[in-house]
Structures are given as C-alpha cells and as structure tokens.
C-alpha cells in the first residue's frame, strides 16, 4: 500500500527529512571510519566520504521525490512550462484562448438565462414536493373552486392559491404600477417562507370581510423603503385603498411566478376591498387563480392525482358556472383536477421562451464544439511541429504518460485561460441578454447572475472541452515513433501525402457542425422575415394606441361607459393631425383576447370548442382606421344604437366555418353560453381576415359587435388613432381630451407598430442570436480551415518547390491546394447535410412560412459556407503558388 505511505509522507515532511539526514550522517561516519582505518587523515577521510555521497541536501531532495508534495511540485512546474511554451507562440495562444473564451462565454451566458428561467428551484422549503393543480389543462382556476379545494385539502395534503395582479401604488400623490399577488392565507406556511421582518400573512388573515393588510417582498423593501424596520404598521396605498404593512417576506423570495417578481403580497380576501363590487371572489367564470399543492408526506404524484380525481365531481358541482346549458354542464362536470410537478414555480416566460432558450443552448453548444475543434487543430499542428522535441524526450526515457501529462497540462492551461476570459464575456453579456429578453415581448424581470451553479457549469464545460481538444492530440503525440522522427529531417516530413490527416478530418468536422448552425440561423431569419412581411389584415404603422382604464373612475357608472368612450372618440377625431380614430375592446396582437360560443342555424358543432369564435367590440370606423377592408355589407353606423336591432360584423374565417362560405348578410348569429335564449344578432358586414392574438396563427373566426349597443362596456378600452406625429405628437392633446370627459380615467399610450413588433420577441431573439452565433461559428471554423491549410502548405513547401521547378504552373499549384480544401469542405458538408435533415426537426415549431428543411435556406447556407471556405483556402493556396521554388528547395 505504497500510496498510503506517500500520503502520510506529505503530512510528516519534517520527520522524513530528519530521518534521511540521520541516515546520511550514519553513512558518512561509517565511511570516514573505514577510510581512516585504511590510513587516511580524519579530515581528508571526511571530505572523501562527503564527496562520494554527494551533496546532502540534494540527496535529501532526491529521496523525497516520491511523495505527493513533489507530485504537486511537478504539476506546478508543468504549468509553468506550459505557460512558457504558450507564450513562445503568442499568435497561436491568442487564437486558441479567444476561440475558447467566445465558446465558453456564449455557453455560460445562455446557460445562466436558461438556469434563471427554466431550472432554478424556488427558494422555498422542499420545492421538489410542489405540484401545480390544473383543470382540463387550464392553469387558471376560479375562487369558488379554490375554496372547495381548500376546505377539502386534508384529503391530499396542503394547498395554496395565488392570483397575480398589477397593483397601482400611490406615494405622495403619484401612482406607479406595482406587481403583486393575491395570496391565500396558507400561502407562506405551505411554501415554508417566513418573514424577514414583522410577520407573514397566515390563515387568520384570510376571511371574507378581512381588513386590508399587505406584506412586502424583501427586494421591494430594500429598494423603496431603504430596508427600514419601521415600515411595519405603516400604510401603503394600493389601488387607492390603504393597506397596513404587517411584514417583509424572507430575502430572495419574489413569489412563485418566475420572470415577474412580486413586490407585494395581499390576502386573497382583500381582493374585495380593492375591487369592491367587481370582486371576483364569488365569480364562477373568472379564472384568475393558480393553485399549488404540497402533497402529504409519502404521497406520490399518482396518489395525489387519484385523490384529486375523487374530489373533482364534488368540487366542480359546487363551483360550476350557473349559466351553462345542460350539455355544457355535463361536459364541465366530467373534467378532473390534475397535478403536475412544479418545483421551479410557474412562469409564462418559461412557456414563451423555453423552447427558444433550449434551441439557443444547442446553438452555443455547437459553437463551443467548433471552438474546441479549432484548439485541437492548433494543438495538433503544434504537436507536429514539436514532434522532434517529443521524440528526443521520449528517446531519453520520458514515459509516454509523462509526455501526455505535459501536453494535457497545456490544454488545461488553455482551457482555464479561455474559461476566465469567457466568464468575463458572459458577465458582460448576461445583463444585456436579460435586457434583450425583457425588451422584446412580455414584461420580464429576470434575476440573472453568475453564482455557484453557473460557475460549476462553466467549470464542467471547461474540463470537458479541455479533455475534448487536448486528449486526441496528446495521445497522437505520445504515439510518436522516436526513431522515425529522429532519423528523418523534420522539414522533409510531409504529412500531405495522406488525403485526410487528423487535422483535415477535424476541419471537416467543423464544417459538419457549422452547416446546421448556419441553416438554423437562416431558418430563423427567414421566419422573422415571413412574419414581418405577411399581410396581417391591418396596417399598424401610423397608428397610436391609447388605453383608457376606468377602474378608478368611481363616478362613471357601468351603463354610461360606452357613451363616455364615444364622447372621448369624438373629441380625439376633432384633434388636429388625426386622420381617423376608433375605439375597441381588444387591439390586434395585444395581450388580451375574448372568445365566446356562437350558434348559427345550419351549423352543428362537433363539440363545445367547435362553436367558439373570437370577439371584439368596436366603434364605427375601426376598420377604416386600422385599414381592414370591408368586403361585403357595411361598417357600423350611427344607426346601430341601444334599442336598435343588434348588429354584428364577421370576418371571412367565420363565414367559411359557420356559414359554409355563403353570403351571411342579413342572417342571424346568437352569442353566449346559453345561446338558445341569447338575442339574435344580424350580420350586417363581412371584413377581410385580420390576425387576432398572434401573427403566426391564422385569423380565427371573429365577430365584431358595436360599442354603441353595449349597456355594460368593459372598464378598460382602447383607442386607435391614425396620426402622423406618433405617440409624442398626440399624447398631450389626447390626454386633455380624455380628462375633459372624466378626469379620473387612467391613460397610457403606445405605438400599434411596436405592439405588433413586440409580439415577435421570441422570433427576433432567435433570429438575432442565432445569426450572431452562426457568424461566430463561421469565423471560428474558417480560422480553423485557414490555419490547417496554411500549415499544410508550409509542410509541403519542398514538394511544391519541386513541382514548380519541374514546370508546374502557379495556377496548377493553386488548384492542387484548392482541391485539398474542396475535399475537406465537401466531406464536412456531406455529414453536415445529413445532420441538418435530422436536427432541423427540432425547429419545426419555431419556423413560420417554410419547412424546417427548406431547400432554399439549406442551399444559401451551403453557398455562404463554401464561398467563405474558398476565401479561407485561397489565401494559403496563393501563398503556395507565389513561393520561389529555388528558395524552398535550398532550405531542404
């Protein structure tokens, strides 16, 4: 068990040194005695004894050369040697380190976002136990359902509910938006999150008619209250109502929804305080709560689901919306609650960006592989150049493992340098990446930082890459046959005779990895182009959107809202610079949608969902303002008033589906859950299909009803204003117009074009980043190709010199080198092409308007790759053909 002794030697170097010293002393004494006995003087005998033994310190050191400290020493000297070797070839080192830094940096940056969005568990007790409760696949539930489940939770464990809400917080007379959650009384107890200051909301706070209290998130407490403990007991004005602050949640906890941190937590029951009569607590068809369960200890997901299934009929019967028809009632009651694991919380960001993030992670993985191949190639070239040196060392008795260790140390040093620089790059880009995610599409706030997990990831990929690019060249070098290397002149060795050297195979591999990346980038760009160029059925440019919120306008009765909106519209239309304006409940490609059941004589739906159509409520001239063409019949007119027969305008898709493509003008449409008793609406017009919620989805069957005929218009309404001056040109005048009608209406402005463009956030993200990564990979691969070809040309200088001397033309020499380039690139393309056919399936849901294996995109990628490769290969070829043959030959 010699290694035990080696280990113990490390811990007792002092004793070991002393032992050795004593042994040496003994030896010297014995030798001196013998020499004196043979007739020498004591002094000369002593000198001779020392001379024979050698210097005692070196002796001691040589004897100690077998312990681990010495092994560490050897490692340190290996590292030092590696640094010296690398600094001798700065160009090579810079290319290698930069390649790795870009690869590792890109991976770390993307991974940190993936981690923040997809992987990180919630900072709560035992997050792996949490399960989300869904009903028929829907993730939002009603409060009556929650109350039923809450009272029955002993059957399956513990449960909590929360509803996200955009509060408005008023400080010093100014209102600002503040994201928060309505939380059930057990919320903090079930999650196992405590209070940093004060107390957490508990069960005793959540009862009908409860007082208005609030809890702050730690981050909000720090940012807006300076972390002062006297915030407890103070009053916070939320949605115009005072809420007493009772506590601050534990540090790091921002609610369960990832990507939208909650700043404030308010008991569910206080929703009635804020919304008054509009409260959703007793509404059976307002779906606004997320339910999370923590099953009893030892309960599996299957058991939890079985218990939920048993509970479902009773809960649903007690919470079924009253207005359902008998058939729909039956369908509703047949649904079942289901649980799915939710250790990482919930996230709409995850739903929207998840796929895109994994695609990007795949892309940066390819970039890193290409970078690795580059470094492997550089190492191979170096190893070949050092063959002579290695052969000498091998001949002098250096073991194979010793040589491999030396080369691997060099790889490790390269990888470490690359990782360090990569981390710096990642640190610089993650915040930009999070900002990019936040700026496009939905409002996203991500906590992205480089913590232990990210560093572990980076360390992992660094080790992996170090091994990947280091092992092959190291092994190959160690297999060097010293005799063959030593007997031949290093300059005469020409590896060019074999068609595919290891280096060329590696470049072919790079090309094979590169093609899918380029095709992917091409597909993403084409998708974005298709989506931005398609005709959505409206023209968003030149339209300003004004959102008006009547939630805080207490004096405005529900029945008078429609006329107030019409009043505002009339004032807006009169403003200078406004060519046309309209009002609508929903704006296209916005965040809200509205659908309802429709019934048309002669159409029998296959199922409930088959009778769904999308809706919008609009003023007159809506179609004129957003430029959707009216194909048949008419737009709404002043005649469509309350009291007049209800009119409806439908789009082509609705005509195709519900009217079987026949002219629907004058026919009747009934709307609502209980369509039998619903008033008939007469179709007065048909408009062209316009995209509704997303540019990707085809326009759904859509019905438009008249604002002027609504006796209970929505609290939130939108105005479309076609004007040349943009948001800033109209803001002040429009705001004044709104406040002339009612000064307590909240107003916000945006550009219609921005709204449409923001909906392409994921596409833009993918197109931009995949293009950047594709360009990066292309650059890296071409550096690789250029490097290998240049090196080859140098190695074949003698051969090329002879060819030129024997009368080969310079063009012929160029062709010779280019043929090599072509062979390598073609091999790579062939493999890459097969890879594309398989891998592009992963992009099936991401592409729009073309197939994932779109031949044009693939062809363009191939042409781009080949032309850049031709340039990268031509430079060395030209250099080869320009060389003076005599010069090349004389050097031999």
């Amino acid at each position: 068990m010699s290694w035990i002794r080696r280990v113990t030697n490390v811990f007792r170097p002092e004793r070991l040194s002393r032992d050795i010293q004593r042994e040496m002393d003994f030896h010297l004494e014995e030798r001196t005695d013998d020499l004196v006995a043979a007739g020498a003087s004591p002094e000369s005998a002593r000198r001779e004894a020392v001379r024979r033994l050698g210097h005692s310190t070196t002796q001691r050191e040589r004897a100690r050369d077998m312990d681990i400290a010495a092994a560490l020493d050897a490692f340190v000297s290996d590292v030092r040697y590696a640094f010296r070797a690398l600094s001798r070839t700065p160009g090579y080192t810079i290319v290698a380190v930069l390649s790795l830094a870009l690869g590792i940096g890109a991976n770390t940056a993307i991974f940190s976002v993936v981690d923040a969005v997809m992987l990180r568990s919630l900072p709560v007790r035992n997050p792996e136990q949490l399960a989300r409760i869904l009903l028929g696949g829907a993730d939002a539930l009603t409060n009556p359902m929650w109350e039923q489940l809450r009272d029955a939770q002993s059957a399956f464990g513990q449960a909590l509910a929360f509803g996200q809400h955009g509060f408005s917080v008023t400080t010093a007379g100014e209102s600002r938006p503040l994201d928060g959650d309505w939380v059930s009384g057990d919320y903090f107890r079930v999650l196992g999150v405590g209070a940093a200051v004060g107390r957490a909301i508990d069960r005793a706070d959540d009862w009908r008619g409860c007082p208005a209290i609030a809890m702050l998130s730690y981050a909000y407490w720090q940012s807006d209250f300076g972390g002062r403990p006297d915030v407890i007991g103070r009053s916070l004005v939320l949605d115009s109502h005072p809420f007493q602050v009772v506590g601050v949640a534990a540090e790091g906890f921002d609610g369960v929804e990832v990507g939208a941190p909650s700043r404030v937590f308010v008991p569910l029951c206080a929703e009635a305080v804020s919304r008054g009569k509009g409260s959703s607590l007793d509404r059976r068809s307002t779906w606004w709560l997320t339910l999370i369960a923590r099953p009893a200890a030892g309960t599996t997901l299957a058991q939890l689901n079985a218990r939920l299934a048993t509970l479902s009929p009773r809960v649903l019967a007690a919470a079924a919306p009253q207005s359902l028809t008998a058939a729909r009632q039956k369908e509703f009651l047949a649904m079942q609650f289901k649980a799915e694991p939710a250790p990482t919380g919930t996230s709409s960001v995850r739903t929207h960006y998840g796929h895109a993030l994994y695609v990007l992670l795949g892309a940066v993985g390819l970039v890193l592989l290409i970078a690795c191949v580059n470094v492997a190639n550089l190492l191979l070239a170096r190893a070949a150049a050092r063959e002579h040196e290695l052969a000498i060392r091998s001949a002098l008795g250096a073991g194979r493992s010793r040589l491999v260790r030396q080369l691997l140390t060099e790889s490790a040093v390269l990888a470490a340098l690359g990782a360090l620089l990569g981390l710096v790059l990642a640190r610089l880009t993650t915040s930009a990446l999070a900002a990019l995610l936040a700026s496009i599409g939905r409002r996203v706030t991500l906590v992205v930082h480089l913590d232990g997990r990210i560093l572990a990831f980076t360390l992992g990929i660094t080790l992996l890459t170090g091994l990947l690019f280091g092992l092959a060249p190291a092994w190959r070098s160690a297999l060097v046959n010293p005799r063959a290397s030593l007997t031949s002149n290093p300059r005469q060795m020409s590896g060019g005779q074999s068609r595919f050297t290891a280096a060329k195979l590696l470049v072919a591999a790079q090309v094979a990895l590169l093609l899918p990346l380029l095709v992917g980038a091409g597909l993403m760009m084409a998708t974005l182009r298709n989506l931005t160029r398609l005709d959505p059925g409206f023209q968003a440019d030149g339209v300003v959107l004004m959102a008006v919120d009547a939630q805080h306008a207490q004096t405005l009765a529900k029945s008078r809202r429609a006329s107030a909106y019409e009043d505002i519209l009339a004032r807006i239309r009169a403003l200078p610079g406004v060519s046309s304006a309209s009002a609508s409940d929903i704006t296209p490609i916005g965040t809200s949608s509205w659908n309802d059941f429709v019934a048309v004589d002669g159409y029998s739906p296959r199922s409930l969902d088959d009778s769904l159509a999308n809706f919008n409520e609009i003023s007159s001239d809506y179609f004129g303002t957003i430029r959707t063409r009216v194909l048949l019949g008419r737009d709404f007119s002043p005649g469509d008033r309350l009291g007049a027969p209800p009119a409806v305008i439908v789009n082509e898709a609705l005509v195709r589906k519900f009217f079987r493509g026949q002219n629907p003008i004058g026919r009747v449409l009934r709307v609502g859950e209980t369509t039998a008793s619903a008033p008939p609406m007469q179709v007065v017009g048909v408009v062209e299909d316009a995209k509704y919620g997303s540019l990707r989805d085809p326009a759904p069957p859509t019905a438009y009803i008249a604002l002027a005929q609504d006796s209970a218009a929505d609290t939130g309404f939108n105005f479309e204003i076609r004007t040349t001056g943009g948001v800033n040109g109209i803001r002040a005048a429009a705001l004044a117009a709104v406040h002339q009608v009612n000064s307590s209406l909240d107003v916000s402005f945006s550009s219609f074009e921005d709204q449409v463009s923001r909906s392409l956030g994921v596409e833009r993200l993918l197109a931009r980043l995949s293009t950047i990564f594709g360009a990066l990979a292309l650059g890296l691969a071409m550096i690789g190709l250029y490097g290998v070809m240049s090196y080859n040309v140098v190695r074949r200088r003698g051969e090329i010199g002879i060819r030129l001397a024997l009368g080969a033309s310079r063009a012929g020499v160029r062709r010779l080198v280019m043929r090599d380039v072509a062979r390598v690139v073609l091999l790579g393309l062939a493999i890459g092409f097969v890879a594309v056919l398989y891998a592009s399936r992963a992009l099936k849901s991401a592409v729009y308007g073309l197939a994932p294996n779109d031949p044009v995109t693939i062809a363009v990628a191939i042409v781009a790759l080949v032309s850049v490769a031709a340039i990268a290969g031509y430079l060395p070829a030209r250099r080869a053909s320009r060389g003076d043959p005599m010069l090349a030959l004389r050097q031999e």
Partner: protein
Amino acid sequence: MPRTRNDILQGTLALLVLKCLDARGRMHGYAITSHIQRVSAELLRVEEGSLYPALHRMEQDGWVRASWGTTEKNRQARFYELTPAGQRQLAAEQESWGRLTEGVRRVLRYA
C-alpha cells in the same frame, strides 16, 4: 506487485539490493554498499548518491521495511529487511535479468 523498469541501471541496483537483503537478512545502507562491493570482488561499486533514493523508493513500493536500530559500534542506523512483496519482486527481477543476460550472451556469441 513486480514491476519492470526501463532504466537498466536503476533496475539493476534494486536487484542487487534485494538480493543482498535476501541473502543476509537485515542490513543498513552502508553495509549494503560494502557487501555488494565485497561480494562482487570490487567489480561493482554502488553509486552511493543513488543508493538512498533507491532504498526509499523501494520502501515506498513496499518491497523493503525500514526501522531504526543500533550497530555493533553502538551507532544509530536505519536497517532494511525484505518484505514478501520484495521477495516476489526479487524473483521477477532475477528472471528478467536472466533473460537479459541470456539474450546479450546469445547476441555476443552468434551475432
């Protein structure tokens, strides 16, 4: 576990030391040098500078065991003795030495 080494000199020294310890039992380093010198009729002289590193390496490989003791002259010395692993190593090294010399002999005779 027997090992083979590339380094002939070092391997030979180990073989000689192991053989001495096998033949004479417990010995200290100085006695080993003198014994090799004497038995080889002064033909072989141990490079004293490499003896102690070799002994320590052999100790770490578990071929020999070392302990402090007192010589006849009443001096403190480190005594070495063979372990069972050392016995096996000796057998292996003797065999490979035999093969080497036989090979060299044949070459010298027939080449």
